[in-house]
């Protein structure tokens, strides 16, 4: 066991896979010599050579397009999109190509690639360094979509993603890279050193895609969250004293429906939270599934607390970010409904 930040855990996952599997290659903008603008690949080019860890031109479509071609040949590329906000030029290659090749070729060709991208707000990045596009991926059949909330999960899920036979979108909540988040932006981040989930094995281990984790057991109400929102949920539960069961989804696609349904069947109440804009956000999908599966258990409408339907603002970041106060209000309303 070692202590790792989420950045170190992600780096360690790639390190393990570069070591174990000669088919692994890592590339993206600034990931080679420099080691990535968030340092996730620092040292890997030195250790494994420029042929396995390298820089690319500023062209996300080329990054994913090349990865698809390499995967068709038999390699296992893990590429970085510098910010999730910059995946849009690659959206055609991701959704129309990577997601489809196995099916359209009837398994003549496959596409085992992992596409990493820092997601979410919390760093005053404004509208082009803060977006959470997960719902734009969960709508696409053929993709798998993952988002960790701890270093331990980040490493286990990333290794699992890199071992997947199909394309995986790996969303990294940049707000959590260097430390957890007590839900309040005023409170300074405590760092992963103090956190149990900062304990990460040096070697190979996986966390299966499609399995959620119950972060807090509770009986009053179920909170569905992922990434930064897990910590906001914990803060809201703490501060309201509501005995909420907090489920960290970890995998959005495929979804751990059983864990969710079991919890809501038990609590009869559900609040869904995410940072992305509300309309057609992933919360809508969660609500659709829960109301279908748990209709007769539900004692209150399922509430959602999300980013507002506006571009992510710079100065007003914390008015946009769904914080503990907003979530607390939703918890109380849902309990009182």
């Amino acid at each position, binding site marked *: 066991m070692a202590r790792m930040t989420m950045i170190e855990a992600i780096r360690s996952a790639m390190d393990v896979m570069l070591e174990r599997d000669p088919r692994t290659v890592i590339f993206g903008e600034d990931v080679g010599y420099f080691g990535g603008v968030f340092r996730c690949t620092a040292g890997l080019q030195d250790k494994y050579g420029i042929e396995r860890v390298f820089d690319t031109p500023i062209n996300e479509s080329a990054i994913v397009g090349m990865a698809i071609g390499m995967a068709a040949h038999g390699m296992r590329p893990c590429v970085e999109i510098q910010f999730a906000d910059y995946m849009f030029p690659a959206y055609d290659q991701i959704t129309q190509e990577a997601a489809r*090749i196995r099916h359209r070729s009837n398994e003549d060709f496959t596409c085992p690639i992992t596409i990493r991208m820092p997601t979410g707000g919390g760093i005053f990045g404004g509208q082009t360094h803060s977006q959470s596009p997960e719902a734009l991926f969960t709508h696409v059949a053929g993709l798998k979509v993952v988002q960790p909330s701890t270093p331990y999960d980040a490493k286990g899920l990333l290794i699992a993603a890199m071992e997947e036979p199909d394309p995986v979108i790996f969303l990294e909540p940049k707000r959590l890279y260097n430390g957890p988040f007590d839900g309040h932006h005023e409170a300074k981040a405590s760092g992963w050193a103090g956190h149990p989930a900062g304990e990460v094995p040096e070697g190979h281990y996986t966390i299966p895609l499609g399995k959620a984790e119950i972060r807090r057991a509770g009986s009053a109400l179920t909170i569905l969250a992922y990434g930064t929102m897990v910590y906001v949920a914990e803060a809201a539960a703490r501060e309201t004293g509501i005995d909420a069961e907090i489920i960290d989804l970890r995998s959005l696609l495929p979804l751990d429906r059983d864990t969710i349904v079991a919890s809501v069947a038990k609590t009869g109440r559900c609040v869904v939270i995410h940072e992305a804009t509300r309309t057609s956000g992933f919360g809508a999908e969660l609500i659709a599934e829960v109301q279908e599966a748990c209709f007769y258990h539900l004692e209150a409408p399922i509430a959602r607390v999300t980013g507002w339907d506006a571009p992510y603002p710079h100065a007003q970041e914390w008015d946009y970010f769904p914080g503990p106060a907003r979530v607390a209000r939703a918890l109380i309303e849902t309990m009182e409904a």
Partner: protein
Amino acid sequence: MKLRFPTPPSRPGEPPDFSDLVIPPAGALPVPPLDLTSAAAWDYANGLVRVLDDEGRAVGPWADYLGQAGDDEALIRGMRDMLTIRAIDRRLLNAQRQGKTSFYMQCTGEEAIGCGFQRMLSKGDMNFPTYRQQSLLVAADYPLETLMGQVYSNRKDPLMGRQLPILHSAREYGFFSISGNLGTQYPQAVGWAMAAVLSGESAIAAGWIGDGATASNDFHSALVSAAVYRPPVVLNIVNNQWAISSFSGIAGGGEATFADRAIGYGLPAIRVDGNDYLAVLAASKWAIARARGGHGPVIIEWLTYRAAAHSTSDDPSAYRSKEEASAWPLGDPIDRLRQHLATKDIWSDGRHAQVEAEILDTVIATQKEVESHGTFVNPQPLSPAEIFRGVYKDMPPHLRRQRQEMGF
């Protein structure tokens, strides 16, 4: 001040006009060294590699360079390849007209390019084609039964009816799964070629794109990547003068050749008479040797003409002169090879008619057999549950639930 809106030399009702197209004589261009640089490539990107002269004689340095690869056997095989794909195109067009399948696209007039290029590739090389390179499959000796099965989307279709007719996939035959979205295959070809090198193989990749689709963004993403990493990839541009209703000028082909695009990226390019089967063989041999020899990527602009409609959904008489195809200065690839074979006394009208008939018989027989496994008129549907197979390697729970909802 006015904007410029390019218009083609002729529209319906007007006489065809290719006077802007400069056609240098066969043999005019030398054969460049395999390590040709972009700086030295100007003449090759603006000239035209041609072997057959107007009398059908093979002349000039590219004829010599071709050597054995252009022996009688190779040329007769080329003739058979071209006659085969043309027969198939005719028959499948008919089948579509009869409602036996939903859609079809011919490569009429462009047969030499895929047929010749494929014969110069080696086992293990990979094409990233568009929907107009079925000629590659024929020259790769892909079973006609399978080729037709895909077009009928029937029980013989290796893709189980999932893809639109003509969007083949045949890994074993060096043919990557075709996408309906233009351009995407181009950077994929670059990536595949990089993987070949990183895996220590000597295989090369070949990307294919049309004149119209050079305007698409992935043309650029591929050229930038190829320029940076210099993998063994041949990037082919099939300039058949037309996209759907828009001519090459709407793709920006007005002031420079498409081959010229490469030079600005620091990549060499050559421009080739795509209706001259010997020129196709020679240029393909050179480009493939260059790539395999580690001299880096090369772009080939193939000059040709889309003689048929864009697809079965298209009627070209609405936007271009009916006589254009016959006025096309580079002629028809089959006629030109036929003329050449005649000059060598290894071919005759009788022989041609006989081979054409043989091939037609085979194609018809195969077609009948394939149709017996289902057509859009007499379908032999698969289980609807097949829709869910292969979306992922292992079917996730939500797809299993949906399959149950479907009743399976």
